[in-house]
């Protein structure tokens, strides 16, 4: 479960707007608009907060609450999957190890 991969916001500018626990993002370079669900929205907020990059363990800690108690492994997998999806959208990028 413990993973060392680090992530940060992708280079280039984008605008985003949160609506409750979801978000929409406009990517300047591609002109695309994306709809992020609760986890994607929370991860993007975390990447904005950790401008210099952040590892999955820290993200897991940031997102952890009582509802996830005992489900860290599953949440970590979901965080990794969602980060890869954000990377596919050019919104996040993994840092070289």
């Amino acid at each position, binding site marked *: 479960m413990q993973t060392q991969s680090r992530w940060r916001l992708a280079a280039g500018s984008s605008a985003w*707007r949160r*609506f*409750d626990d*979801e978000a*929409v993002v*406009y990517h*300047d370079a591609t002109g695309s*608009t994306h709809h992020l669900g609760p986890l994607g929205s929370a991860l993007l907020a975390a990447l904005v907060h950790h401008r210099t990059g952040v590892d999955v363990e820290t993200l897991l800690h940031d997102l952890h609450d009582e509802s996830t108690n005992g489900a860290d492994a599953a949440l970590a997998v979901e965080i990794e999957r969602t980060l890869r999806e954000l990377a596919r959208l050019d919104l996040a990028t993994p840092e070289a190890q």
Partner: protein
Amino acid sequence: MIVADLRPDELRRRLARAGLRLRIGPVVAEIRSSFRAVEAGVALHYADHEVVDEDQFADFEVAVERPANVRRWIRPQAIFRFENRPPFTPLAANQAFPLLEWGLNWCVSAHCHQYLIVHAAVVERNGRAIVLPAPQGSGKSTLCAALVSRGFRLLSDELALIDIERNCIVPLPRPISLKNQSIATIAAFWPEAPMSAVVHDTVKGSVVHVRPPRASVVASAERALPGWIVLPAYRPSHRRQLTCVSKASVFMQLVDSAFNYSLHGRRGFDALGRLVDASECCRFTYGGDLDDAVQAFNTLTEAA
């Protein structure tokens, strides 16, 4: 001066020769046509619109004309021209007035890029707009006509013009277009509706237009602040249901329904964001009971 002030022969002369210049919301359209159906349609549906002097600037110069070839006489056709160019293929001559309406929709959606334009009906109550974005078959125009018949102000049946800088909706009061089953539905619900004769066998099936209420045309300069974004869904025999929907999903639906979102880039994103932020977002599923539907909107707007 408004169209109703013109004598019939003067209306015909203007349409056939120099062109009739009409102020329609924020735009001026110069219309030329020798079709009697266009003349009758303009006289009925644009009766309350301002006639603009011939020396004033027109945003669009459009014409619905007979072709110069054999189709002038055999299976006659009508051609829509925008600044002397035909952007569409001709249609049967009996569709001359619907062709004008569809052509004007195209003029606005393809050229008025000072606005963010969304495919949606918009009505207003107490200064707040109700935006009804929807794909075909959702009952958008039926609902719009029903609401307008019960006192909601018509801003537009088809095109929501969003002022990007001021975060408000700009009126474009034009005829409401009804298709197929909705024609009989509205005729029964609103027996005195000022409706044109049915035109059959168009690409959209049978169509009629309903004249915008005079009060809506008179208030053309009064913009509306965002109030509600309601996604209508007509489901025959379903009970009426008004439910909250996520603002992010409504935002994406507006992106999909916008004609020129990509043209505006981040400004369009920000404008839609402000619109959605300032609006209550709902999904409205309704069956055939339009009285009940109108009551739901009365309740919705009174609660604000």
